[in-house]
Structure formats: structure tokens, C-alpha cells
């Protein structure tokens, strides 16, 4: 296992434990905040993943692409980034619960 995938696995394990607690304690972002997050994902995540999320330099993020991936790991990828790849950490722009909300939306069908 490479160092970066080990780090990723540790983060995933950590957030798997943490996000269960988050899910119970937190509520969905406010509608205004949801709008900001949708804009962020479409416009700024979109510079690598495509505005329609069909992929670019980064992988596609459509429901079919994500269906076999654990949500906790995806949340960790957004929040902490993915060392060894161009995926940066987004934690200065959102809470972990908001990252989890984004993953949840991505796995259904991401709002326009």
C-alpha cells in the first residue's frame, strides 16, 4: 500500500467513525448555504470535474460513478484532499457536515 493510499485509508476510517456522529447531530445546511455549496461544486469543483460533473482532469462525479464508493471516504476526500493527486483539501471553505451533504447530493443527482 502506498503512503498516500494509507493516509487516505486512515482518513477514511477516521471519518467513517466521525461522520456517523455528524449525521445524527447535524441538520442539512440552510437553503441559502445549500445554494452556495451547489455553486461551489458546479463552478469551482467543476474546473477539474466538469461543470456537468462528467469528469475532466479529475474523475466524473455522477451517481453511476460513485455508487460503489463509500460515502465516508468521499467526504474525507473532499474535506482533507487526496495526497498524491491534484485533489486539494476544501476544509477551509466548508464544515465536514457540509462535505457530507455534498456527497449525499452527488450520489443522488446533484442540483443545478
Amino acid at each position, binding site marked *: 500500500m502506498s503512503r498516500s493510499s494509507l493516509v487516505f485509508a486512515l482518513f477514511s476510517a477516521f471519518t467513517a467513525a466521525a461522520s456517523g456522529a455528524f449525521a445524527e447531530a447535524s441538520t442539512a445546511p440552510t437553503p441559502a448555504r445549500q445554494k452556495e455549496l451547489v455553486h461551489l461544486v458546479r*463552478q*469551482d469543483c*467543476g*474546473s*477539474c470535474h*466538469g*461543470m*456537468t460533473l*462528467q*469528469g*475532466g*482532469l479529475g474523475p466524473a462525479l455522477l451517481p453511476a460513478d460513485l455508487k460503489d464508493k463509500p460515502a465516508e471516504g468521499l467526504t474525507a476526500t473532499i474535506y482533507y*484532499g487526496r495526497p498524491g493527486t*491534484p485533489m*486539494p*483539501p476544501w476544509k477551509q*471553505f466548508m464544515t465536514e457536515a457540509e462535505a457530507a451533504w455534498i456527497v449525499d447530493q452527488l450520489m443522488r443527482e446533484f442540483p443545478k
Partner: protein
Amino acid sequence: MTSLRTLFAACAALFLAACAGQQLRGTGDLGMVIERASGQVTLVNTSSRQAYARIDGLGDLSHASVVYSRDGRYAFVFGRDGGLSKVDLLEAKIVKRVIQSGNAIGGSISQDGRIVVAQNYTPGGIKAFDAETLELLSEVPAEYAPGKYSKVVGLADSPGNKFVYALFDGGEIWVSDFSNPRAPTTSRYPAGLQPYDGLVTPDGRYFLAGLFGEDGVAILDLWQPEKGARKILENYGRGQEKLPVFKMPHLRGWSVAQGKAYLPAIGRHEVLVVDVATWKEVGRIPVRGQPVFVMARPDGRQVWVNFAFPDNGKMDVIDTLAGKAVRAFEPGKGILHMEFSPRGEHLWLSARDDNKVLIIGTERFDTVGEIAAASPSGIFFTSRAARIGF
């Protein structure tokens, strides 16, 4: 008799003009603004500084780019969804459109203007089309190891109907010679970790590939490619931890000014300055964010820099004589792209989140005009038609 003939000629000219519904005109002052959210483009005139037409039906334009036919009349628009559209700037309409891949990132046009090449992420590789008909001529899959295909970045034309590009996943620079457009030949050169974009210098001699996976830039001398690619600006980060990069920088031949190349650092809020004669670093200029576009005014006196999220409302202007940023301002929200008027008296900026294009005087930094556009991204003027490496 003479006057009668003149009168007749004048009548004929009037009649023709009436038939065409418009006066004859050139295209040297025209251009295109991509409206990425709505799949539309707005056609603009850099003399009147106004939009003159809007065209829709171009598909997903979220990372669209444009090259021009050498007569400056037709724009080839490469859409994210693999759509390649040929747009007539004079008639303001799409004359041809094909879906050429699943996921495209841009393209380039050959020295002789007859071949348009698209660079693709999925399936990874390049495809060559007849510029007249958009008929597929040939393709070069970016299979860098058996069964492994790379995303292609940095495609640029170079003299001799050759195209140079880099393989993000494969870590190589490839040169494909389209002397025979239906049977290109390709040479491969190891470059470095994760090339993210590339450029051909304005003289067509060097290809530079910016590296994301390591500190440095790979350079290939296209006059002596047998010497292979080598690295410059190695270890420019000096082992310091990189800042996160929220958007990949873009490279193109516009980075070269006054004998120096101005290149975005990766994970550092700096513009790196390299002497083009020696390819040695001769300076670095602090700026206010992760640079995305580092673009020289055509005369090379100024270099304008925009930034990745979250600093994408800022712009810095470097004075190449002073060797530092002399102007820092916030012209709008979500500054995605910029383009100089052909001789550089104005800069056009797309302010995505303000839904407008701003036109700024480059001497006094005054806003001289603006154009409404829905989520504007790329701005492309026909002056690109005559440039090597576009």
C-alpha cells in the same frame, strides 16, 4: 461612356450589398466569448467594443476553447462534451458540428490551416479533422503503456504541421507529425510527473510542459528533439510544503515577453521568471494567489495575472521593466479568463459571477466598456489565427 460604366458598377455593388444583407468586412477585430452555463457563445467586435450576435446549441461549454481558421472567418469551438463546432463569424451561425469524443479539453490548428486537432481526456488521445469539412482524418490514442490511456493536455501546433502535447497520466511529451494527415507519426519523450498543461514558444522552437507532480517544467527543443526533454526550474519550491491548488493553471505562448517566460508556480503564490536564452530562473514575483493565467500584453511591457479560487476576484499586473506587480485590483467576481485586443490597448476580462465581460484600458486601468454575458468564461479573438502554438 466611362461614367455610364461607373454608374453600372456602382449599381451592381449596391445590388450585391443588398443581396448579402450586409457590407463586406474583414474579421480581424472580431472574437468570441464563451457562455459556459448556457452552451452559448457571444460574438464580439473589439473596435466597437460591443457584442453583435449570440449563437446557441454548442453543448457543454464548461471548459471550451477556440481556435481560428487562418482567414480569421471560422472559429472551431471545442466543448467539454467532445463537441467540435465550426462557427462562421460573419454569418454568425454554426456551419458544421460533430461529436468527436466523450470528453475534450481543447484543440489546435495546423500551420497550413488544413487540420484541426482535438485533445481528449476520454478516450485519451488526439484526433485530426479536415478543417473544411470536419471529416475525421486520423487519431493518435495516448496509449503510454499497454492498455493504459492518458489524458492529453497542452496541445499546441508547431511548424511543419506538427502537434506537441503532454500526457498527464503518462508523464511524457509527444510530438505527432501530420505531414500525411491520414497517417501521422509520433515520437515520445519522457517529461516528468503529471504534466498539467503546455505551451509552444511564439517562435515555435520550444515546448514547455508544466509539471504538477513535481517542482519543475519540462522543456523540449523542437529543433533538436532527439536530445530529449529536460527539466528547468527544478525544485523551485525548495522542499517547502505546497499550498493547495484549487484550480490548475493554464499555459500558452502568451507567457513569453521581452526574452523571458513568466510562468505560474504550482502551490506557491508566485510567478516564476525564466530567461528564454538560457532557460535559467532569473526571478520570482510575489502575487496575491495561485496564478492561473499569466498573460503578457502583446508588446510585453505588462503581464496580467488572475488567480484560482478563492482569490478569483483579484488581478495583479506585473510591469516587466520594474520586475514586480505594480497594480493590484478586484475588477469583478469570478475572473476566469482574459484576452488582449490584438495590439494590447485593452484587456477583456470575463467576470463569471457578475455575468459580464469587462473591457479595461491597459495604460490607465480604466474600465472602458462592458458586455452582458451569462457566466462568461473563455474570450478568444481572431488575432490568434496567425499565432504559432495556438
